[in-house]
């Protein structure tokens, strides 16, 4: 698997659904096409649902990393620029 260089990070462990996705979406909006965002999220509902929402927005998911502390980092490449 190709490595990636993270351009920006966002922590959504301090918010709950649906703000989790909104916060991630806002962070993605700040990036340019092709840049990579690492989204830190909690286990449970966020990690079940946020990746799918990011996919449905059309972005490219590269990896889900288990931090083994009850949080995960979702690595996302931004697709499309409005």
């Amino acid at each position, binding site marked *: 698997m190709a490595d990636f260089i993270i351009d920006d990070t966002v922590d959504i462990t301090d918010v709950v659904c649906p703000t989790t996705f909104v916060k991630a979406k806002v962070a993605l909006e700040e990036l340019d096409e092709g840049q990579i965002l690492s989204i830190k999220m909690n286990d449970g509902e966020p990690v*079940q649902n946020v990746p*799918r929402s990011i*996919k449905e927005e059309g972005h490219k998911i*590269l*990896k*889900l990393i288990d931090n083994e502390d009850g949080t995960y980092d979702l690595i996302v490449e931004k697709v499309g620029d409005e």
Partner: protein
Amino acid sequence: MAVDYATLKKGGFMRQKQKNNFSLRLRVVGGNLTAKQLAKIAEVAENFGDGYVHLTSRQSVEIPFIKVDDVENVKEALAQGDVEPGVCGPRVRTITACQGMAICPSGCIDTYALAKELDDRYFARELPHKFKFGITGCQNNCLKAEENDLGIKGGIKVDWKESACIGCGVCVKACRQNAITLKDGKITVDKSKCNFCGRCFKACPTDAWDTVNGYIVSFGGLFGNSINKGETIIPFIEDKEKLLKICDTAIKFFEENAKPSERFKFTVDRVGKEKFKEKILEAYNG
């Protein structure tokens, strides 16, 4: 002339407490009404009813306070807006459905198309007692499939497609059944845990799954004087023709075995669950 209540009831006219007044139940399929139908319903409620409608618990519309002398005029007026009376009594009732995959991102089957098909096939069919079909698009079960005599739930059967997988691990967490494990870049699905919710596929960034959309069927649900959750006694159904055959078999079993005013669950209990299962499995395998 004496009022023939049985015929009126068959045609969706529910007798009200108020003498000579009926609440007219309309034929609705899968919970959808066109703007044209709604406009006509509003007009009829205004002209012949009390200016309002009641939304029933099973996605139908009733127009209360229709007078017995207006019954024919009301039917005629409704027909102009493509609206028909519904049914009450011992027969196949309104086929209910959620919005399904045509609208909802979670949907796994086209619930509305299926509701139309079942409505064409069975609506108002005379039986020993009421018989309810309900169709829900996925495991979220917004339409509460298991409340119905025959409940249909959409699902997705998945098979991992190694060539397209990037090993990101999203599916492992998307699965709420803990059926998926990722080890050394390989995905394993515990089929005994999979409930066909399709979340792994829907969350997968590269669509690395071969999928079959299909149906999970439950039998004998009740949610009235007695409460019973419909039971699933056969495996995942992969094609619609098979589903229809199973529905035919269930209805036939009910028709042939039920006592008057006996709900499906009680017929199955009385005649024997094993005997019913045998018939359904015949249809499933045949």
